[in-house]
């Protein structure tokens, strides 16, 4: 298995080099005439007003939170799915129970209105 991962390892480094090539080419070919106005933040075309750090909705965090829980629970199910052939019937129901607990979390978040974009 390690030589399969060697391929992935080399792939990571090559994949990082490939997009770097056009950037390096651009470095030599593209003109560079920086001036103060050009280097300013573009934003929406007019001058920037105020701080970039506007107040964000807590809702973004709530989605990330629900995602995190679902992510880890789904990952737990992958080994279960792979070993399906050797599992006895009750082990399948354990997996189903696991999914039901997961669904209970979703149901709770739904009823609490945590999934509403307000």
């Amino acid at each position: 298995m390690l030589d399969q991962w060697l391929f992935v390892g080399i792939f990571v480094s090559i994949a990082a080099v490939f997009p770097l090539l056009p950037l390096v080419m651009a470095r030599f070919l593209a003109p560079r005439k920086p001036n103060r106005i050009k280097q300013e933040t573009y934003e929406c075309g007019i001058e920037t007003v105020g701080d970039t750090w506007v107040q964000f909705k807590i809702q973004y965090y709530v989605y990330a939170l629900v995602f995190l829980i679902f992510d880890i629970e789904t990952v737990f199910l992958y080994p279960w799915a792979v070993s399906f052939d050797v599992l006895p019937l009750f082990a399948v129901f354990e997996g189903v129970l696991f999914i039901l607990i997961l669904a209970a979390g979703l149901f709770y978040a739904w009823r609490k209105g945590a999934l509403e974009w307000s």
Partner: protein
Amino acid sequence: MTFFEDPVVFLSNLIQDLLVGLNLAPSVVTFFMTLLGVVIVASFGLIAVIFLIWLERKVAARFQDRIGPNRAGPYGLLQTFADIIKLITKEDITPDNADKVAFNIAPILSVVSVLLIWAVIPFASGWIGSDINVGVLYIGAVGSFGILSVLMAGWSSNNKYALLGAFRAVAQLISYEVPMLITLLIPVLLARTMGLMGIVEAQSTWFVVYAPLPALIFLISSIAEIGRTPFDLLEAESEIVAGFHTEYTGMKFGLFFAGEFLHAFTIGVLTAILFFGGWRGPGAETYPVLGVIYLMLKALGGYFIVMWVRTTLPRIRIDHMLNFNWKLLVPVTLALLMLIAVLDKAFAGTALYLPALIAANLVVFAGLMVALRQLAVRQRKERKRFKKRPVAKPA
């Protein structure tokens, strides 16, 4: 083993013999062979993108009753090259207020995250970059770098709209990753392996037959993962300028752009592999070249659907998009997963297997339709109540 039966194995044997003949250590030979494989697979992805951009522009033009690129080269084939030259020779501006390092790494990371998927794609029988036994999860893991690159780009631009766009994009990407991960679980369950080669080999009957609904949900959530219409809220021009890549110019913008196109095609490839039998087809076992052709045709079919959706549907509102995911896709995929798991265990190997799974899909689909109908009825009543209220009439 002649050239025509399996050119890749033939050539790789040839090169391997050559390297061994040079008296190199076996580990060095392995390293060189792997490196060669990596370069071929990675360049395949990137060269495909050049062709795909042209194809997409042509197809989108046809959908909108235009001709599309037709000047540079025959049928405008050289248009993309012209665009690349233009992007490379454009001035590359990094705003003074930007966080330089993160700003420059983000576009590279964005392309890398998509390109890395190609490391585990089985092109044909025996033609695969890396047949790791966790292939499906690897695809999900690599996708998280894409999410990170969006967040990095938005934050480092030091721009309100970029940051806001990045937040939106991330909320969308992580939301749709949940149904995607769950639907990815269904082919894994049916094939009993996470390796993509194993999944293709297990599909003597295409998985789309057993699991049409998961295939559809996978495609939908993947389109959301690319951030294309109708899910292109991350770059809603009327609200947040261009989203997280507002500050990017020149080739760095080009990298985000290329990454998106490559991602769209990769989605087609993945759909073909997971649900449509990958390289499988008549004669693909003996002549692997045919397998590559089958895979590419299936992938182009998937890509065509993505383009079709893109040119047909308007952008949807952010709350609708998130509700659609959390209140429709996620419950449906969970129900499907449970049903398929139980039925698979109960009927595996019997004649009832296929009817049972199709019935499960139909039941879930019917249940979904009933629920949607009730929702629609309720909303219509609500709307009627609003209508009864007195409205000020113009005199």
